[in-house]
């Protein structure tokens, strides 16, 4: 005869297992969007309170460090602006000649990162822009530095972003210098892996990877990561460890682009 405890355990086990089996063959359930939205709002409130309490301390050290860095950056950028101006003019002239339409990625929204996920896995972050702001599933999320991930779920006022470091993420990329194409996917530990790269490809540590635009999801030319080390080889391909361009733990604001 089963006692109450064992009976409850069996019911729980059967219910959750059948739920998970069902979801593994289809999409994860998204129960009660209103409740989800309220919970995220609560999370946002806590986040705001935490930010307010720790803000003065962080502000001082950040401003001091930023000041030093910005002075260096201004000097470097002044030089670069002069050089870039010439290049841009030349580029426009050449494009006009080739009748190439300049395609710009339009920014749908700039969002604040509310939470960096509940367990860090799956690598999902919450942002404070949703359906009301024109966000749609599969839109690209980036910072000024590079690719962050893609929108996987849209709520009325919030959205979830799957980071490029999650094993469930993949994108088509190119090595910027050699233009060789490959597929990048997350490793789950804050880094990424580059797959299907031909074995004979000459590789150097620090080579930049950019999106190729061939997957139909991510616009072309967004910086993704730097080649770090070789993870493995087989008869045809080499697998490479990649360090993302963006600092996953330092994400504060992101852009959602079309």
């Amino acid at each position: 005869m089963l006692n109450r405890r064992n009976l409850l355990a069996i019911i729980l086990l059967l219910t959750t297992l059948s739920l998970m089996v069902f979801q593994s063959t289809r999409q994860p359930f998204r129960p009660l969007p209103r409740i989800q939205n309220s919970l995220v709002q609560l999370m946002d409130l806590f986040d705001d309170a935490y930010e307010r309490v720790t803000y003065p301390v962080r502000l001082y050290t950040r401003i001091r460090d930023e000041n030093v860095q910005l002075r260096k950056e201004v000097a470097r950028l002044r030089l670069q602006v002069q050089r870039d101006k010439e290049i841009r003019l030349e580029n426009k002239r050449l494009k006009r000649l080739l009748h190439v339409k300049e395609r710009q990625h339009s920014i749908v929204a700039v969002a604040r990162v509310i939470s960096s996920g509940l367990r860090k896995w799956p690598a999902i972050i919450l942002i404070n822009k949703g359906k009301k702001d024109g966000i749609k599933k599969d839109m690209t999320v980036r910072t000024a530095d590079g690719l962050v991930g893609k929108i996987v779920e849209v709520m009325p006022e919030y959205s979830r972003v799957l980071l490029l470091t999650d094993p469930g993420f993949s994108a088509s990329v190119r090595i910027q210098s050699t233009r060789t194409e490959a597929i990048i996917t997350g490793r789950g530990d804050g880094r990424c892996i580059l797959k299907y790269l031909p074995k004979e490809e000459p590789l150097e540590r620090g080579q930049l990877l950019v999106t190729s635009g061939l997957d139909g999801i991510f616009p072309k030319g967004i910086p993704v990561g730097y080649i770090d080390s070789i993870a493995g080889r087989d008869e045809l391909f080499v697998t490479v460890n990649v360090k993302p361009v963006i600092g996953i733990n330092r994400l504060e604001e992101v852009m959602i682009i079309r």
Partner: protein
Amino acid sequence: MRKIVKNTILWGSVIICLVVIQSLLTVTSFKLNLAILPVFYLGFKKGDLAGFSSGIGAGLLEDILSGSIIGPSTLSKGMIGLFSHLLYEKFFVWTYLLGIVSVFLITIVDELIIYASMTIFSHQPLPFSSFATASLIKALVNSPFGGIIKKDEE
């Protein structure tokens, strides 16, 4: 009846707050697992039904907020809530050290069930070595809580 409603609201609020707080705090870049603490406490002190219902509630909340499949946290926390009272029944003498070790092990078990469920029914969320480090840190953060749980005097 009034007491039951009062306790449900109180513990429900505690669990919601802890689930929200744990999603915002990180220790050495790892998220904490604080929601297991009230589940274990309720299961241990108030019996298997209280532990079971709080475990289901906390787990469901975590699953919804995680953005992944629904089930792993519900299963692990529900089971832990249900079986926590066994410790109360089996150990005649409850010491500080036993409390600390219990909370440490229960946190590890919770993480392990979630990780295994995710790996089987969704995808391996992170390499096992990273998972082991994360679980260890979470368990270490939680374990001092075990020291303050006491058995009721007979």
